[in-house]
């Protein structure tokens, strides 16, 4: 386990099929650094299944690399999706 402090990364705007590819690259690149990542989702205006998949991919990938990714401050759009997909524990 690394000891470095958790880094906070913000996701802004739409996290949907139209931007999923972009966000995938960006979020995965943050995993290259040391330490846990806190994904700040307060600025996400829209989230669909494609967006959700990217979040799940990042979480899974982080586990492979031995770091933890936590979702933080979900915007209402994010909170609603996490509620229907019952994925609240990603926030913990």
């Amino acid at each position: 386990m690394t000891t470095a402090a958790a880094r906070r990364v913000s996701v802004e705007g739409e996290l949907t099929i139209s931007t999923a590819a972009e966000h995938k690259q960006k979020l995965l690149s943050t995993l290259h650094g040391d330490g846990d990542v806190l994904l700040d989702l307060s600025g996400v205006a829209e989230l669909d299944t494609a967006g959700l998949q990217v979040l799940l991919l990042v979480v899974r990938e982080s586990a492979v690399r031995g770091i933890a990714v936590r979702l933080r401050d979900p915007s209402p759009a994010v909170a609603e999706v996490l509620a229907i997909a019952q994925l609240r524990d990603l926030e913990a």
Partner: protein
Amino acid sequence: MSADDDMREALETFVTEARDLVQGLEDGLLELEGNPAADETVNTLFRAAHTLKGSAGLFGLDHLVSFTHVVETILGALREGTLPVSPGLVSALLPCADHISAMVLGLAEGRLESTDREADDGARLIATLAPYLSDGAAPVTAGPRATEEAATTTRMWRLALRFGRDCLRNGMDPLSFLRYLATIGTVTDVVTSAEGMPDLDEMDPETCYLAFEVQLLTAAPKAEIEGVFEFVRDESDIRIVPADDQVDLYVKAIRAMPESDRLGDVLLSSGVVTELELVEALRIQEQRKKLGGAEAVPLGTILVEQGIVPRPIVDAALNRQRKTAEIRSQDTQTIRIDAARLDKLIDLVGELVIAQSSTGVGTAASGGHQSSEAQGEVMRLVDEVRHSALSLRMVPIGTTLRRFERVVRDVGMELGKDVVLVITGGDAEMDKALVERISDPLLHLVRNSLDHGVEPAEERTRHGKASRGTLRINAYHDAGNIVIEVGDDGRGLDRERILAKATDRGLVAPGATLTDAEIFDLIFEPGFSTAEAVSNLSGRGVGMDVVRRNVTALRGSIEVETTRGAGTTIRIRLPLTLAIIDGFLVGVGQSSFIVPLDRVTECVELPQGPLNRDCMNLRGEVLPFIRLRSLFGIPGEPAQRQNVVIVEQSGLRTGLVVDALLGELQTVIKPLGVLFSKVDCISGSTILGDGGIALILDVGPLVTGHSEREYARQLRRPAPVGG
């Protein structure tokens, strides 16, 4: 953005489905009016409205959802029996179906919200429904459904949803299905699984990898849950099974059911399977039988294997199945195909027919014996391919005809006439394109019959007829044609009045002697109308001539049969398809022409005679003829021996003088460009086996046009020339 395109595509599918559903609503309502006790009809209506609302909800079409919801509520009350079927209610619901149809049409044009006028209309219509809505429940939002179904038992379902890989690209968001499920019941548990997601590099952000397992507590029947996934069913793997602890309930319910011949029926009525699942299982059964060739796998085994029904339930149902052989009806499955693709296929088949007939010519010339046998086989196969390709375009005409029930009802009401519509032969099939193009002329004929044909009730009783008029539409196949008859039992055509009017309008020379058929034919002349009062419906003198023009444009013919006081029947005769005709190839100089074979009655050699004469003696009768060479101004000397192709049009025979008779040919019609749209004696062109082009003669206009030209020429001539 490509996502937008996908969305549009999905929306198009929705619009197509929605149109069918609205049509179903209308048909059902009319049926209900005739037979208010039809429970099954009420069910169908309710399901149509419900599916429409549900699908509209998936697209976020709030205007459609809120309006349809009100209609659905009323239909729900009908289904529950809390509201009786009354003519007033049907009359109030019919315009609602129209309104929904208008909104769907708006969608097709890209309007995702209602216009102000539509919104006003909608509000007005809902107001007319208000008296029927119990306890003033006119919810305008699409909320979870009210307690109307609380009576049926609430059940727990386990839904395994594995959406198609492309569903995101197709504009379908699995999450919206989860949201919708929450409106038909209570979603107690969701497990979202990303196990299908591949490794980092292979993961395509636009592909859907997620699978969901949902526990849904709902009173909705299984078919309704299944209906939620209607638009993704094809590409997705959707399993809906009773939750584990519910199995006993089904087993108990099935044990209490009467015996039945078929396992499927038992399972169906228990609600554990839906019709769609059953059809799919039967299809698998059929497929295996074909592959294995051996004995059929029992249906129950397939249902268990496919994870549709748990084993204990199937066993319980098997006990209820009588020990009779499992007979099942042939499952009719349909698939929607883009009409353009079908046209492309038919076009290709057409080219194949051409190419094949050209090789036919080649072999016949070289005279290879062996190859001619193979050639014959190929010819037979191509012919079969052509037939089945054409049959793909064939649709039963009934759907179009049933639309007239509404017209007859509305127009009858407007005119204060009680008329019943009897449709026969609705299963006669014809080319879809033709069906669409014949629908307007038919509509006009129906209106015309109602307006002018059927008398008001008092007049009918005075003449000793039943006070209720009858309008009959009959369709049948006759020698490569489809015949559609629109007949009424009304007053019939008035020979004298038509003649007087025609003389008055200068359509007929005064004192001319005409046969009955010729006189009745006058009603199709432009500018002819006998209606005493110009009504809202017809009688403006535009109509019958337009009808005839439309029918002729489809290479059809129209005739009228009438008996004074007993009724009129108008008979339209159309080819089954517009794409291919059997033609007769003739040559004039260097040019080739095709005469539609169904018009050709015989061919004779042109007798020697004066060059300027335009008629000949055919077995003692005078046969006028047209010299194609001079008509089309084809240069060169006529051949030594010329031939006459005798064609028949509206009972009149005319000869066409040509140089050479080249034989029968299956011809794919290629339309001429707009540039030639004014050329009225040519209906199209085709490519010959040798690569040459032949023009297809349009016999009707050719003959009538020629008589007119001839008449004009005679008038110009100072003194008539005998002979």
